[in-house]
């Protein structure tokens, strides 16, 4: 928000004129043109390097996000140490499904936002709901220009002492819930998470972790674009912890029961 001439909040005062709080770009000083006049055709893309599901679960006293560490290049398991869950600040974590390049682009913008906030030094930090709202606006505006960021994001954190979990997809649909899963997880893992939460609405951290690990295991069995190397992020009032490189035990004997796999 501060000192960023290109943000939505800072239109210039008059044609070729200054953005308030910034230096005046005198006409003719920079010959670089803006993207609107460069003739680039933008339309709906297709993703290149992609990440699969991310799971999010609210427990008693916090939120947990889990996802694997794979960047698939189509059907090839190309990048096997991609961190798709990142810490934004001490109360917020962001996880992404979909195109990794678009995620990294937004990651850089969000990191710059956190730095700007630090520089402003006014005690205000980005809260999970604020990040969620901002992401919704960005994604919706991109979709409206037929140039979407091909991702589904999960924003998790502690908002005013209460756990918060929100989801936005590439067309700007946003909602928040106590259990969310993106990608294949929505079909495979979400029913398992719902079942678990129905049995015990206020889970402990260990129970939530066990449930998510079970879901991750099932996803590894069933999702062709999954890897057995995961990240689990936990956000509580104390702060954020992200564990990387978690590998799960699997038993492929079940494959024998699948007809046609002899």
């Amino acid at each position, binding site marked *: *928000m501060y000192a960023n001439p290109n943000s939505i909040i800072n239109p210039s005062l008059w044609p070729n004129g200054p953005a*308030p709080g910034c230096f*005046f770009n005198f006409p003719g000083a920079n010959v670089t043109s803006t993207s609107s006049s460069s003739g680039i055709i933008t339309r709906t893309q297709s993703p290149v390097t992609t990440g699969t599901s991310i799971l999010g679960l609210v427990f008693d006293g916090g939120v947990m996000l889990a996802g694997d560490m794979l960047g698939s290049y189509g059907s090839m398991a190309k990048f096997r140490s991609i961190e798709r869950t990142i810490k934004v600040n001490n109360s917020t974590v962001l996880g992404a499904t979909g195109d990794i390049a678009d995620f990294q682009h937004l990651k850089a913008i969000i990191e710059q936002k956190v730095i700007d906030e630090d520089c402003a030094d*006014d005690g205000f930090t980005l*809260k999970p709901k604020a990040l969620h709202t*901002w992401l919704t606006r960005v994604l919706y505006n991109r979709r409206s220009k037929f140039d979407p960021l091909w991702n589904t994001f999960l924003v998790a954190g502690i908002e005013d002492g209460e756990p918060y979990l929100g989801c936005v997809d590439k067309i700007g649909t946003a909602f928040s819930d106590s259990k969310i899963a993106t990608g294949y997880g929505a079909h495979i893992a979400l029913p398992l998470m719902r079942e678990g939460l129905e049995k015990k609405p206020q889970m402990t951290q260990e129970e939530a972790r066990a449930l998510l690990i079970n879901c991750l295991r099932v996803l590894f069995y069933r999702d062709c674009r999954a890897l057995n190397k995961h990240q689990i992020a936990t956000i509580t009032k104390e702060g954020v912890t992200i564990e990387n490189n978690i590998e799960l035990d699997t038993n492929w004997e079940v494959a024998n029961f699948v007809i046609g796999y002899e």
Partner: protein
Amino acid sequence: MARRYDTRTTIFSPEGRLYQVEYAMEAIGHAGTCLGILASDGIVLAAERRNTNKLLDEVFFSEKIYQLNADMVCSVAGITSDANVLTNELRLISQRYLLQYGESIPCEQLVSWLCDVKQAYTQYGGKRPFGVSLLYAGWDHQYGFQLYQSDPSGNYGGWKATCIGNNSAAAVSMLKQEYKEGETKIDDALALAIRVMSKTMDATKLTPDKLELATLTRHDNKTYIKVLPVAQVKALIADHEKKEAAEAAKSKPSPAYTPKGVEYPTYTESPGSKPAVYPSAAYSEAPASESEYPYNNIPEKNGVSKGISFNSDFPKFDDFVQHVENIKFDQFKI
């Protein structure tokens, strides 16, 4: 000497001054007074209303006090049309932030953003500065109640109590003496605001149509911004006048508080002495009949209402003073 360097904002004078900015502040010095006082449980904004023409249609609820967003309110002093542009922009900035982040903009960020705009008009483009000073009163969860003042140069500061507009220097020095940090609640702040306004306003007498009062408070995690209704302002003014009259009765007030060198009348007569306009009918005529309560049908004489208690021989001094507006005493005219 000044003449050659004051036509354009974008140049300094040889003495290092920006004349257009200074002239803008001069314009504000002739505008209606606005003052703001920070209390421990809220903020009070008071403004002098200059347009009291009876022909004016009541389109706007308030002439100088504008709500900016759920948690902030501002009052303006200066060129009204410039002020409209700025308050509109302030509201837009707040709403853009709310749309982007889903929460209210922090007070200082809003003030700072607008001041960047005001500063740009003193440095680029060859356009004149905005001839408006603003007082912003707001609440956020980080710093609680805050009061800011900004001027045409784009400078802003946080204040405990301050004043802009006509006679603002006198008001600020009075606030400096009377404002008690940490001990002021909303009611004290309202009383102090009226006290200061009555001394600094042009009008000889404070009336509710010449004064706008607004308060910003918090209850149950929600901000309440209220422009006080006429009845409440009237009551506060009446309280103030009562207190003032009581003070004047006790001792001769110090010269610092007499406006324009006029002497306050001293009550050398005893409270019980009968002034000329006191209705004598009640005492000179015998009651119509014994059974009838004798004081029910006392006719109103010389504007003294029936509210005065007749239980003792003479009315109490306080009852008398309550209706001082109705009594015409030449010696009381200030």
